[in-house]
């Protein structure tokens, strides 16, 4: 067995921060190799060095036994390294064909390219239409475009940055079939993920990074999921379990709520109905773009709902705006952090104050007392391990995962009677996700109701007692999890009926 890529003692610093500190890793050809680590562990830095977007301060790489030091992604691609990015590097207003051409060096426009795309798409069972505009495609289809773009370079090494975080279970299964076929055909794969179950399923080796340093290289099947997670975060994980489920009376209900979207690419909501009790955690699963955004806007109160469709504690709240809803102790964490959840150009302190329905404890006679605000911010920053130099930092300067922790924490410390949260751990690493989940459970144990809208099925399965699926604007009844629950959910997620 020979090595396709050998990385030795790579170091890369940004000022005082060592993003990669003496990291080594070797990828065998035709193997699927996992790169594991929390946010900020240095995975992206390492991958960018391999892909030629960054040059390391020291250390060296070998590609098929020859010295390899790429100056740009072009050189990496010339050598046969391709990459599927986490936030896809696709152009929404262009067609699939144009997008693929853009990623291929030396391919011009006049060649009849569609046929070649279709050939590759058939060969690997990746269904795409070259003439479609990417903006109209689902997330899964966009990923297929990225993968085909990479495959058409005939790579010897394919780097995939968290490829499954946005896919349905069926799409994940399809992806794995493709990846296994690729590896069998002689292409090595560097698979970056924090989903440990997947890593144990398809990867033959794993390299774990923490704080820029190499922790260990191991064979993932020889360790349990929990062991791997603990290697990643460097401490013990707390077991998630609801000890104290006491379901009380109904606190929130949605009745026959419909909405016609005003965006032609939007989704119309049809007769949404849902009941939530005190002390319960309710999950809405589903693939993004099936009406989640539209529903969230109605629940938050960005858009008023018709009379008698939303009821909170016996009060019709459809016409209340989000500030008025917060005053009744309904709190929200919207999915889009910058813009909906936080004002990007304002500090964490300012963002803390802005969402408060009652700011008397931070003001004196309506004049803001910044010291008091900072105390509240600090509570959130400490409790939820938000990595930031101070609460004076602008919201947009925090990484996505960190800002997410701050926003979830900001709502949680207000002890909401009802918390509605979309994608609570989107982009958040395993250790912090565990913290957030624990805090949600504690809140529910105290008798609050929590509604979670998430694409992450594992998250919903581990937290929620009552699970619905949103598909094409329609909400299923609560899925009976006792028999074949997961199968039913998968079916519902792709638009099927149960």
């Amino acid at each position, binding site marked *: 067995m020979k090595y396709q890529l050998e990385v030795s003692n790579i170091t890369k610093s940004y000022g005082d921060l060592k993003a990669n500190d003496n990291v080594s890793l070797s990828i065998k050809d035709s193997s699927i190799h996992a790169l594991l680590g929390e946010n900020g562990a240095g995975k992206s830095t390492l991958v960018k060095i391999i892909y*030629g977007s960054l040059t390391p301060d020291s250390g060296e790489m070998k590609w098929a036994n020859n010295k390899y030091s790429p100056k740009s992604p072009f050189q990496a691609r010339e050598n046969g390294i391709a990459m599927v990015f986490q936030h*896809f*590097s696709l152009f929404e207003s262009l067609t699939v064909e144009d997008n693929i051409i853009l990623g291929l060096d030396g391919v011009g426009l006049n060649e009849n390219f569609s046929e070649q795309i279709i050939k590759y798409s058939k060969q690997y069972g990746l269904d795409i239409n070259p003439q479609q505009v990417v903006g109209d495609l689902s997330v899964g289809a966009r990923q297929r475009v990225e993968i085909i773009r990479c495959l058409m370079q005939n790579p010897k090494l394919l780097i995939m940055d968290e490829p499954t975080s946005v896919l349905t279970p069926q799409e994940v299964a399809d992806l794995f079939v493709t990846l296994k076929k690729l590896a069998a055909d002689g292409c090595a794969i560097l698979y970056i993920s924090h989903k440990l179950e997947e890593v144990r399923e398809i990867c033959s080796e794993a390299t774990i990074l923490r704080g820029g340093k190499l922790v260990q290289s191991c064979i993932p099947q020889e360790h349990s999921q929990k062991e791997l997670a603990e290697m990643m975060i460097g401490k013990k994980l707390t077991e998630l379990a609801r000890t104290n489920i006491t379901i009380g009376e109904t606190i929130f209900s949605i009745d026959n709520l419909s909405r016609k979207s005003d965006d032609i690419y939007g989704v119309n909501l049809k007769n949404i109905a849902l009941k939530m009790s005190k002390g319960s955690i309710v999950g809405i699963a589903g693939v993004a773009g099936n009406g989640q955004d539209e529903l969230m806007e109605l629940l938050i109160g960005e858009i008023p709902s018709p009379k008698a469709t939303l009821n909170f504690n016996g009060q019709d709240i459809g016409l209340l705006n989000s500030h008025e809803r917060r005053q009744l102790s309904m709190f929200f964490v919207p999915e889009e952090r910058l813009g909906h959840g936080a004002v990007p150009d304002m500090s964490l302190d300012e963002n803390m104050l802005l969402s408060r329905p009652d700011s008397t404890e931070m003001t004196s006679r309506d004049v803001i007392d910044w010291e008091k605000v900072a105390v509240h911010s600090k509570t959130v920053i400490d409790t939820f391990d938000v990595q930031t130099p101070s609460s004076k930092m602008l919201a947009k300067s925090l990484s996505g995962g960190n800002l997410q922790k701050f926003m979830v924490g900001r709502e949680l410390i207000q002890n909401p009677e009802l918390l509605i949260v979309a994608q609570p751990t989107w982009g958040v690493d395993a250790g912090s996700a565990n913290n957030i989940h624990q805090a949600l459970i504690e809140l529910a144990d105290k008798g609050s109701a929590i509604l979670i809208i998430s694409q992450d099925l594992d998250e919903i399965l581990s937290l929620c007692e009552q699970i619905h699926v949103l598909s094409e604007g329609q909400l299923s009844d609560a899925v009976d999890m006792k028999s074949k629950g997961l199968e039913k959910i998968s079916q519902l997620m792709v638009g099927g009926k149960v």
Partner: protein
Amino acid sequence: MNESLFINIIIGISIASVPLMFAAIGELLVERSGVLNLGVEGMMIVGALLGFVVMSHTQNPYLAVLAAMAGGMAIASIFAFLTQFLLTNQVATGLALTLFGLGFAAFAGRGYTEETIQLITAVPIPYLSDIPYLGPLLFSFNPLVYLAFFMVYLVWWFLFRTKQGLILRAIGDNHDAAHAIGHNVVRYRVMAILFGGAMAGIGGAFLSLVQVPIWGEGMTAGRGWIALGLVVFASWQPFRIIFGAILFGGITILQIHAQGLNINVSAQYLSMLPYLATIVILVSLRMRLKNKTNRTVPNCLGRIFHSTT
């Protein structure tokens, strides 16, 4: 209406449209790359001045047009440096560029306000221009008029028929993604901005070399702003620039010929027309696009690109 008046109107419209066409097609390419340069008026007036000055010293129309292009590009290069390397706000920088260009041209052109030059005249194409009706309509124009139409075609061809054009559109759509796959965002944008400057320069020079043989302070008279409106009117599609420029140019010419045609409207109302038309068109365009995800606007328009790697 008699025949020669009709032909005169057509020629008049073409002359009024061409400066808009040049400036707008340049700005269209700039905006396709994701940059909003509001300095068109400033680049035009500097082009108008430089073209005039070189013409008055050398009497060489080729040199004059080249000088106008260089002038527009020089002003555009200030914009490119500030917005692409120092990452300044594009709207503020563009406005400053217009004010700077107007002031600079007024100052540098003080000595030329009394001078007149030899206009660049129409060159009827031999034989073809002798065809009855069609000849005077299609083949008897100033060479710069043909160049304007050709530039529109060229920009279309570049954007939609070349790989570089595709890359430029991709950069306008998502500069982070373009950077991630290894394309040089800043280089493409600087080139686009310089091209926009050159086109605005010729557009300005057309005023002082073809329309009138004199130099006057502020002689661009808001045409740069109309060109900016035209790009939106054309919804970033090159060939629609031609239609829009002729429409806007036509309104201007209508003012001049209105009296000859016995249309009894006071001149002030007519001179308001191009600007009113801009507003009406912008509003109606918005109404038409309402409830639609607008695919035509480059997504990154006006956004600052800063690579962290």
